């Protein structure tokens, strides 16, 4: 039976193509600007091309949210064969995307759009989309997603702070690292905040700490490993995690262009949704 409501997200959800197709999820792209050139995330440029350009580029690209008009177009199209839609987006503390969606939705009459500010980024949003898509009604989907928003976590290891600093999202002070030593901060995105939860000197220590951190966060109901151009490491981490969390699927996902602009290459992330405490 065809679902009566649509599920919409944006390109920062790092939604795997396979999920997009299976669950018929609509992705609205954010934009990446290399100087004068504008690319739609995951549409005009593949992730591989993006990271190649990022590494080669002397100036950093900038990113921008979709316009309200672009959202309105999508909602209008979906209104033709759906009763309503849930539109789940990157945290409003990080991007204007959710706000653009809200404004866009208000211009489409007679079509219910439940915009959800996920307060997070990357694959936790993809998980929320799946949960929504598996729900039997828009109301149920919205409730299931909204109650999980406060439990979404992104634990990120950046190979360098250069990109996130240039992007203005995190300062060195926030990351608790000085300007002298090449420290690797572990950043946690949770409940509208980005905070440094640890800092270490070497990548392998950092990875070990990430795994320890997530183990201490148990129980979790969804867990994935994200990477920016570090697939082997990500697979190895996922294999370890599947051992430790035998009930979980632990997919490996690729960090997309927009997020990649801020994380830089070689970033790794453990993203998860904590289980609701009883």
């Amino acid at each position, binding site marked *: 039976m065809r679902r009566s409501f649509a599920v919409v997200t944006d390109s920062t959800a790092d939604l795997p193509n396979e999920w997009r197709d299976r669950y018929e999820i609509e992705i609205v792209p954010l934009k990446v600007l290399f100087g004068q050139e504008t690319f739609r995330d995951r549409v005009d440029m593949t992730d591989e091309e993006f990271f190649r350009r990022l590494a080669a580029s002397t100036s950093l690209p900038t990113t921008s949210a979709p316009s309200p008009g672009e959202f309105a177009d999508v909602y209008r199209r979906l209104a033709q064969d759906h009763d309503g839609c849930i539109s789940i987006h990157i945290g409003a503390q990080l991007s204007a995307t959710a706000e653009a969606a809200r404004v866009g939705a208000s211009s489409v009459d007679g079509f219910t759009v439940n915009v959800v500010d996920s307060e997070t980024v990357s694959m936790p949003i993809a998980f929320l989309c799946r949960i929504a898509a598996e729900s039997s009604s828009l109301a149920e989907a919205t409730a299931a997603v909204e109650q999980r928003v406060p439990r979404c976590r992104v634990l990120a290891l950046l190979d360098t702070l250069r990109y996130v600093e240039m992007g203005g999202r995190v300062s060195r*002070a926030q990351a*608790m*690292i*000085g*300007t*002298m*030593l*090449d*420290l690797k901060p572990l950043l946690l995105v949770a409940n509208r905040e980005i905070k440094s*939860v*640890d*800092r*270490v*000197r*070497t*990548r*392998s*220590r950092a990875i070990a700490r990430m795994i320890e951190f997530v183990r201490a966060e148990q129980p979790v109901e969804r867990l994935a490993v994200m990477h920016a151009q570090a697939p082997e490491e990500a697979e190895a981490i996922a294999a370890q995690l599947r051992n430790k969390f035998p009930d979980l699927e632990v997919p490996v996902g690729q960090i997309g262009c927009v997020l990649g602009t801020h994380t830089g290459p070689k970033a790794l992330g453990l993203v998860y949704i904590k289980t609701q405490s009883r």
Partner: protein
Amino acid sequence: MAALKATGVDGQLFKRALLGSLNWLAANHEEVNRLNVFPVPDGDTGTNMLLTLQSAVEDVKESNAAEVSKIAKLASHGSLMGARGNSGVILSQIFRGFARAVEGKGSLTPAELATAFEEAANAAYRAVNKPTEGTILTVAREAGRAAATAASSPEASVPRVIAAAAAGARAAVLKTPSQLQILRDAGVVDAGGYGLQLILEGMLKSMEESEPAPSSIAETRRPASPASQVSLDLPEGGWGYCTEFLIEGDNLDTELIRGQIESLGNSVLVVGEPELVKVHVHTDDPTSVINLAGGYGKLLKLNVGDMSTQHRRILETAGAASGARPARANGVGLVAVVAGRGLVEIFKGLGVDAIIEGGQTMNPSTKDMLTAIESVPYDEVLLLPNNGNVIAAAKQVVGLTKKKLHVVETHSVPQGVSAVVAFRPERRGDENLRAMKAEAERVQTIEVTHAVRDTRSNGVRVKKGDVIGLINDRLEFAGDDYPEVVKKALGKLGPDAYELVTVYRGEQASDDELARLESEIRTNYPGLEVEVQQGDQQHYPFILSVE
């Protein structure tokens, strides 16, 4: 009074004996320094003992107390505050044991003096975790035994007991190489033991000089400023003043005085005895502090320092400690002992609130560390000595501050960096201590320097000037140039087990030497990442952290 001098040790005689010790050690401390068994340029034993003794005598000089117990107490307290290096800390414990043994006594018989010497040695043994024979401990004990033997003779006198103690010390010092392999290897006697021998010999000299040196009397008569005449201009919005002085009086109540002074400032330190109390306070209103204290007795050694200047010296390094950096949630401050401009910047950048300049050849005193700890705006502090020779003095601070102090026993700069990196502001102090210690132990330290003397250590024979490489404080390699020694040291550690080498470049290392060292590491160990940091440390052209 001549009769009393011959038969008993009163306060002024003991004071003279201590001044004699100081003069004799001062004249000979370089000789003690040369007894260093290690070829590395580190905190010299003679200098550390001399500075500790100077601090012991500092307050004694001001006192006219007739009772030996009072002078001994002052010496005990002063030495504790001034303790530097391991030998200095042990010396302070010797003074402490002596002061305990003579408590309540106005004058000592020869037998009582001998007992006090023995008690002093016992206290020193108790203070050390794993007492080692062939060190200052053995020398202290043998001096005590010899003194006891002399005291039991019918012709016992104070000069004879002291002479016996000095002779016992000398004999024990000569035996130290037979007790300790490292001394035998290096062909020297124990430096700390020799320092103690000099202290006892100095006492003996003061006995032999029948008349006390007039200068030492003159020095004791420094006029104190009458409280009523002190007036100071206060700058607006300044740091306030670091105000320090001694109160000499009767039945002084340190608790009561502390309570009153605390209402006038912060970083309050009030320590001492009923007759003499040392006060330290940071205040905007030194005049009131001085007026208050003046009510208890005579003020001595009044020193009011403008903290804006002091801050530049000790606390500038604290960077944002009191300014931009927000207060930490866990209420735990970080204080580290560091030397070298670059290393100071690194530790500051990692969030350390106050830095005590010092380390390798310049071991900070207990008091230096205490002052820094009192200066940070936290009631709980983690202290990183970052040098094996500073740890003992750092531990002494625990008993001197009202703050909750944890010493993270870091033996080197790399251990210190690893420990600080592991500090988390949301974690409790004891949890941080555990985590920091664990991280410090994961890192390996390679230090590269030049031998300052010919010696043999850990089976390695070195010539003065050789490049030497130490792994975790143990001498492992000697050679002609830095890259070669570092390559061997990394090879010994087994580079496959490590990822990252951080090279802290010292003041002496040239660009070319650095480039050659880097390329040697990269060529021989391509699996290791190499990061270079400007450390500007003295004496060690390179310190490497391997993790």
